[in-house]
């Protein structure tokens, strides 16, 4: 009984650690590395971020939008920069939806 409990607990703990490693293992290029002089960079107002830890949540979701190469949030300025791929057709509404999924609220498009 005791051994079974220990085995169960150890399995759960290992699962948690694997989850942690999987969560950290993204090898994406950063926003700054991808920017070229011809890049289209949009800037949006975003409300609800209160620390640097908020950046990852919204950047991950914006990064999954087709036609978006990368994004960069700034909690102090309350802004989100979005790098758009050449020839893509990303609308502001799609970006706004992704911001809402991150539990933040989109404001105006500033640029």
């Amino acid at each position, binding site marked *: *009984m*005791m051994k079974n*409990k*220990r085995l*169960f*607990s150890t399995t*759960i*703990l290992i699962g*948690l*650690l694997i*989850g*942690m490693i*999987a*969560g*950290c293992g*993204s090898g994406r290029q950063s926003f700054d590395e991808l920017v070229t002089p011809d890049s289209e960079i949009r800037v949006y107002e975003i*409300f*609800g971020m*209160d*620390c*640097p*830890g908020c*950046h*990852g*949540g*919204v950047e*991950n*979701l914006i990064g999954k939008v087709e036609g978006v190469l990368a994004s960069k949030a*700034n*909690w*102090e*300025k*309350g802004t989100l920069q979005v790098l758009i791929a050449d020839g893509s057709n990303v609308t502001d509404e799609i970006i706004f939806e992704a911001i*809402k*999924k*991150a*539990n*933040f*609220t989109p*404001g105006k498009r500033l640029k």
Partner: protein
Amino acid sequence: MKAYKNKRRMISLALVALIMTALFAPTIANAGGISIDAGLTPAVNRIMVRSQMRILERYSESMMGGGTMKMEMRILPVMVAYGVRSDLTVMARMAHVWSDMTMSGSSMPMMNGKTSSSGFGDLLLLAKYRMVRINKPGYTLGIAPTLALELPTGSDGIGSDSYDLRGGVFFSGRHKSWAMDLDLSYINNGTALANDNEINPGDEYGIDIALARQFGLGSNAMLAIAPVLEASYKKTTPDIINDVDVMDTGESVTTLAPGLKLTYGSLIFEGLVRFPVSQEQEGMQTEHKTMFLFGFRLMN
């Protein structure tokens, strides 16, 4: 004579085991730390991993036989949270516990000595629902009720023998760089007992308030430091057996905990010192001493 000594030793060990079991479960459950900034649910698909080392001590000068008792514990909880939807977060938490209990000066010599034990605590499964989230320029408000179940999966003598149901609600407010979080919680310990144990462990009521101010450091908004002040009140009702309160169980404690949180991108380091400002225990029980907590949080 030898049989008599063995019997006394067995009774003493049983008493020690009973005391430890009674003390461990609420101690593990109550030691929240900088965890009440969770009123704002994370983004969908976001994974958070969090771990802490909690070092705490309990002490009593008036135990059985006039002796003293000191209990030192190190608790290492690991928690994983996942944003299933933007309005629903699920979490799993489990802790490893090391403890040393020293009794001395008792007129019952068999009671004196040091007992050490270690093992896993119970597995806690929790769901948090975003009921309200208002993001406006300059302020954010959030209300998130929670429902949790603690399963009796812990090691013998460390975990509890019951399924415990928990309910609570987080209120979070942000105004510019200030943050305020309030957590009201209720734990129905012994919702369902896992074995023939007829002792129904006491329920717990908690109020936690945290106030913090975030200071951005550097020019790229990646680094921030936040002094934090937490205040907590916890009340544990006495255990019950056959509709009668069990002696030496039940307590209430109010604590204050100043601390510091350092955020670098998706990694947060946190530390605090929690000290009791008032406490009341029923009968002969150990008192809470200062607790030290430090840990990290990692988000994908």
